[in-house]
C-alpha cells in the first residue's frame, strides 16, 4: 500500500501518535459504528421486528470486525477515519429516516 503524500498529516508521521490514534479509533470508533449500525438495522424494515433485532446484532458484529480491520489496514489516518465516518453517516441517515416516521 503506497502512502498518498497529499493526505499525510503530522499525526501520520509520528509513529506513537499514529498507532495510538488507530487503537482509539478501532476500540471506540468501531464499537460506536457497530452501535449505530445495530440501531439503524433494527429500526429499518428489512424483516419483521424480533428478527430485525437478531439480524441487526449479527450484522453489526461483522460491521465492527470489518471496521477494526479497516482502521489498521489503511495507509493514512484520514482514510481510516473516513472509513468510520462515511458508514456512520450512512447509518445515521438511515436511522433518522426510519425512526420518526414510525414505519417499523
Amino acid at each position, binding site marked *: 500500500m503506497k502512502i498518498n503524500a497529499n493526505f499525510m498529516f503530522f499525526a501520520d508521521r509520528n509513529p506513537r501518535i499514529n498507532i495510538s490514534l488507530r487503537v482509539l479509533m478501532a476500540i471506540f470508533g468501531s464499537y460506536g459504528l457497530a452501535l449505530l449500525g445495530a440501531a439503524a438495522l433494527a429500526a429499518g424494515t428489512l424483516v419483521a421486528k424480533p428478527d430485525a*433485532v437478531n439480524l441487526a446484532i449479527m450484522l453489526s*458484529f461483522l460491521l465492527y470486525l470489518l471496521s477494526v480491520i479497516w482502521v489498521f489496514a489503511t495507509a493514512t489516518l484520514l482514510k481510516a477515519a473516513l472509513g468510520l465516518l462515511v458508514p456512520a453517516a450512512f447509518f445515521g441517515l438511515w436511522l433518522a429516516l426510519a*425512526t420518526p416516521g414510525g414505519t417499523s
Partner: protein
Amino acid sequence: MRFDQPRGLRQSMSWLHTWSGLVLGWLLFAIFATGTLSFFRNEITFWMQPELHRADKNRIDLDRALQILAWEAPNATQWSITFPSPRNPTLGLSWQAPGQNQGAGGRDQQEGAREGASREARPARESAGGNGERPRGEGGFAAREGRPVRENAGGGGERAGREGGFAARSREDGSARREGAARSERAGRPEGEGAAQQNDGRQQGEAPNAAGGQQQARAQGGGGGGGGNRGPRIVLDPATGAQLKGRETAGGNFLYRFHFELYGMDRMWGRWIVGIATMFMFVAIISGVIVHRNIFKDFFTFRPAKGKRSWLDAHNASSVLSLPFHIVITFSGLLLFGNMLLPTAMQSAYPDGMNMRARMAQEATPPSGERAPLVDLVPLLAIADETWQSRGIGSLTIINPGDRKSIVEIRQPMAGGSLVSGRNMAESLRFDGVTGEPLAVTQAPPPTTVQAISNVFIMLHRGFFASPVPRWLLFLAGIGGALMVATGLVMWCIARTKEKEKHRVESGRTPFGHRLVEVCNVAGIAGLLLAIGAYFWANRLIPADLLQRNLWEIRVFFLIWGASGVHALLRDYKRAWIEQLAGAGFLIAALPFLNPLTGGLSLFGSISLGQGLLIGFDLAALLIGLSLFYAARKVRLHVPRVRATQAAPPFVNLQPEESA
C-alpha cells in the same frame, strides 16, 4: 512494524493479531479452558458428588417419587420430576411453594425445572418384582405395555443392558418390538441428542435478567439472582427411591459461570469483561486468518524442534484444525451477549421498551380448591412415549397437584430439538390431571430464517444438540482453542527472545514488559490448570458436611491460582513452567485414584456399574494429566538453540537470524 511507514496488509494484520490476542490473552485462555470443561458441566457436577455415584437409573420408582412430593410439598402449586438421562442418572424432584410468584419469575423457574428435567432416558417402573423380569431402564415402558423386554441372563447381561443405555438410545430395540412398522425407525437411533439440557435447569431457575433482551433471556437463561434462589430440590436414586444427599458443591457450574461472567464481581461487570474479551478474540482470529494466507498448507506443516518456527507451526495447526469451531464459538459468544454489547438494536426496534416478563408469563391456572386424586400417570407417559417415539420424555410437571384443576404436563427433552429449531421448540403434552384427558397445547411456531441462523450458532455454542460423539468433538475443539491461545501467548515471548537477550546483556535485567508476559503466561496457563486440579481435590478433601463447603472449594481454586502467580514471579521462567505443569499434571492425573479413596467409584467400579459419565471423566482426567506431565518433561529437556549473540561457533550460524 510502524504504521507511519508503507506496509502490506499482512503486516498490519500481523500487528493487530499479535496485540489483540495478547492484551486479554490470559483471560481468553481461562475462558476457553473453563468453557471447554463446561461442555461436560453435568458430568463434572455428578463426579463432584460421589454420594450419587451409585445411583441406579435402570428403573424408576415413580410412585415413590410422588409419595415424597406429597409428603414434602403437599401445598405446592407445582411439582416437577426430572427423569434420569445419560448425563445424570438421578431422578430430580422439585416444586414450587404457594408463595412463589406465578408470573414471569415463576414461569422462568418452571421452565428451569422443566429443562432441568429434560433427560433422555425413559422412566421405567418396576412393574414386576424379581430379578428376572426387571425391566431395564429404557425398556420400562415396553414392559408396562406388555411388550417383550430383553431378559438378561445374569449379571453380565444386566451390565450389558445398562451400558447399552449409555451407548445407544435404542431402547432395547433389538428385542422390544412394537407392533407398528413406523416404530422401526427407532432402532439404532443414537441416544442423547438432548443430553445437554438439564444443565440449564438451575440457571434458568433464576430470576430473569432485567437487562437481558429476548435473545439473552432465551440463551443465557436469565441473570440476576446469583444462583442462590433456586427452588427446593431432592435427588433420588431412581431405582430405590432413596434420597441421595449430594455434598454441597458448585460443581461444573462454577466453571461454567466463570467462563462467561467470571467470579467475585457484579455479574454484569463480569459479562462485560468477557464480552469485550470476546470482541478482541473475534478480531484476533479473523486477522490471524488474513495473516496466514497459506492456511491449508500451514496445517500440514510441522517442523518440530526448530524453536520459534515450531511454535508457529503448533499455533497454526491448533488454530486451523478447528478454525470453524473457533470462529463459530467466538461469534456465537458475541451473539449470546448481543443485547448487552449492542443494546441499541433493542432500543431502536422497541423504543417503548419491551416487556419480556409479560411475554414469558404463562397463563396461570388457578386451583379450584377442591381436592381430587391425581390420575394414573403411567398411561399418560405411555401416550407421550407413543407420540414422540424416538425423542423421549424429558420431564413431567404437575400443576396444582391434588386439586380438581390439576394439569399434567409432559415435556420432551429440551435437547431433542434440532440445531435450527432452538431450545424453545421442545414439545409438550398437557393432560387434565384428574381425568387424564388431553388438553390443547400451543406449540411454538417454526423458527424464521433469521432465528434459525442464530439458533444454529447458539445451539453449537451451548452444545444443546450434542449426543456424546459431537460433544466430545466440541470438547476436543475447545482444547484446540485453549492450545491456540496458549501457544500464541508463548510465542509472543519466544519471538522476542533476541531483544530480551540483548536487553539483558546491556542492562542485566529482563525487560519489564517481557517479564510481565512471562509471569502471566505461567500463571495464566499452567497456573489455571493447577487451580482447576486443586478445585477437584478440594471437592474431595474438604469435609462433606462443612458449612459453606462449596465456597471453600471456590476459595481453594482462587488461592491456588493466586499462589501460582506468586510462584511464577519468584521462580525463573523455565523452572516455573516445569513445576506448575508437573503439579497440574499430578493433580489432574491422580483424580481417578482420588475418586474411590474419597467415597466415589473406582474406574473399574464405574465400568462394572456402567456409569459412563464417570468413566469419561476419569479417563479424560488421566489423559489430560499425563499430557501435562509430558509437556513439563518437554520443557525440562528443552535446550535453547545457541544464539548468534552468544558468540556461537560458526556452524550454528548457517541460518543467520534476521536482523532487527
